[in-house]
């Protein structure tokens, strides 16, 4: 049977979850922009606005400590971070492009070696996705196989209904258990979903694009595509599925922490060898890697496209590079 929840009940539910000691991460106002951040009260929840940055940092923080070390007269001590102590988290209000992203990253973070920092947070997080009723002109989830009402990656999925409130569907077993636990916040009955957003993007031929990438590593088009790229890395940092990282020590020889922090394949020194040799020494090679990784390599390795069509790279590129135009141009090639 269809369940519904009013907006007020949804906010009250978040209050209860916070009271129970859960961390609730949701779009909230941060100065003049909206960001995914932990909220302190259900009132802070902002629904229906796409946050400036993606939700990936709920699982993969911009910078996190992976161990601490100290040195004294007895030698060096390395202390682990207790991933078991990561808080139970509810990520609520994520549009489909953000809700679908963490599941795409499961593949790389569990490939042979398990990255407990990512995977523990995944295990401890319930994702409550939210259907989009408005798209802007950078949205293109429909071009890469998602849609404004896709519940992929969500444990629970909210669809706005006419007259306020949401349809509330359990998508996973985890979501079902959650719904059963908090059934008192829900109501039954029929409700008419609001029409979902309609991004202007038409589906891309991802298989055809992959084929072109396969045989056009040396194409002169790469220079054309990337001529303007400033290598600022904004696209990678805002992307819900870009996941390159650096490992650095912060501290002194005697005391400090080792941290994992976001990095970007667009940065010039990303692949620089100790000898000074750099396999991706110019920007168009770096931009090529970005496109190849998203639309070919990740497919080759893990059978998935490394893009959810959120459009953040399009909105935020300081030199106006539009990944859709690049993909459409590739698609138009024989």
């Amino acid at each position, binding site marked *: 049977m269809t369940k519904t929840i009013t907006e007020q009940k949804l906010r009250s539910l978040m209050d209860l979850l916070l009271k129970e000691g859960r961390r609730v991460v949701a779009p909230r106002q941060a100065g003049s922009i909206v960001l995914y951040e932990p909220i302190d009260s259900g009132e802070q929840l902002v629904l229906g606005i796409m946050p400036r940055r993606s939700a990936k940092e709920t699982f993969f923080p911009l910078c996190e400590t*992976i161990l601490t070390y100290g040195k004294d007269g007895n030698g060096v001590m390395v202390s682990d971070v207790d991933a078991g102590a990561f808080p139970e988290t509810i990520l609520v209000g994520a549009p489909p492009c953000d809700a679908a992203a963490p599941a795409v990253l499961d593949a790389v973070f569990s490939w*042979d070696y398990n990255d407990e920092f990512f995977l523990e947070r995944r295990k401890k997080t319930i994702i409550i996705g939210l259907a989009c009723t408005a798209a802007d002109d950078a949205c293109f989830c429909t071009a890469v196989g998602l849609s404004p009402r896709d519940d992929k990656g969500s444990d629970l999925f909210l669809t706005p209904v006419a007259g306020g409130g949401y349809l509330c569907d359990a998508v996973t077993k985890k979501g079902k258990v959650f719904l059963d636990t908090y059934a008192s916040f829900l109501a039954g009955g029929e409700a008419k979903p609001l029409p979902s957003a309609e991004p202007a993007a038409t589906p891309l031929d991802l298989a055809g694009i992959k084929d072109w990438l396969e045989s056009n590593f040396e194409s002169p088009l790469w220079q054309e595509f990337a001529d303007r790229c400033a290598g600022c890395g904004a696209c990678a940092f805002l992307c819900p599925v870009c996941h390159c*990282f650096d*490992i650095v020590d912060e501290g002194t020889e005697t005391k400090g922490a080792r941290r994992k922090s976001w990095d970007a394949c667009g940065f010039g020194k990303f692949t620089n060898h100790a000898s000074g040799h750099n*396999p991706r020494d110019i920007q168009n090679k770096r931009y090529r890697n970005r496109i190849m990784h998203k639309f070919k390599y990740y497919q080759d390795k893990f059978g998935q496209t490394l893009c959810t069509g959120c459009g953040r790279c399009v909105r935020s590129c300081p030199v106006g590079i539009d990944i859709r135009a690049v993909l459409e141009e590739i698609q138009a090639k024989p």
Partner: protein
Amino acid sequence: MCDHTKNIYKPQLATIEAMIDETPDVRTLRLVFQDEAVRESFSFRAGQFAEYSAFGAGESTFCIASSPTRKGYIECCFRATGRVTEALRRLEVGETIGVRGPYGNSFPIESFFGKNLVFVAGGIALPPLRTVIWNCLDWRDKFGDITIVYGARTEADLVYKHELKEWQERGDVRLVKTVDPGGNSPGWDGKVGFVPTILEEAAPAAENTIGLVCGPPIMIKFTLPVLEKLGFKDDSIYTTLENRMKCGLGKCGRCNVGNVYVCKDGPVFTAAQVKGMPQEF
């Protein structure tokens, strides 16, 4: 993988037991794991690499340069050239460094049994072959002829000088050492010329022979055609790719050549595999 801790980024601690300055800026460290259980259980294959940390500076990637047949310690060899390697160089015998690994694939040494081996190395790239060389010398009766062609810019840049002497004096190894033109002193007892040229001159037979090549990209570029000319097939030539890495675990995204992650699918590849990759290394 011998590290059973859950945190895949957490290194084991090792004590610097000895160090050798191979050249003015290249140093070998001999390392012994501090944890007895790790010391007993740590095993690796020739060709695998590790992440070595100087706490406070970070981690650096080098191959394990000692042979898996020599138990109880591992060795690494590095040039002091950046933040981490400079910090590693500041450490003294008895001090502690971190080691994560072993990672990556390895040379399929068992498949070389019964064959001749030709090692070709340049400069600081002898360590990834030195592990195989000692592994094979410790199993000497498993192989036919063993030839080592090794060169560096100058005499001073040759690493493992003491071992070159040892190989030169063994009756069961043919060592051809060379330095680039102008890199020799009056008393130099080796060849003068670039590695590919000297290899061509030495002309080891390709029949039933495996070629193992490590060196700077430019040396590899000119060595592969020479091996081809000598009759070596691409699938009997092995090399290692040495891309920049951070995690070593197939996650951090920087060591890929096309869809190949050097840290997991490599670092050991056949020439046939390398030729099939996008030329971006």
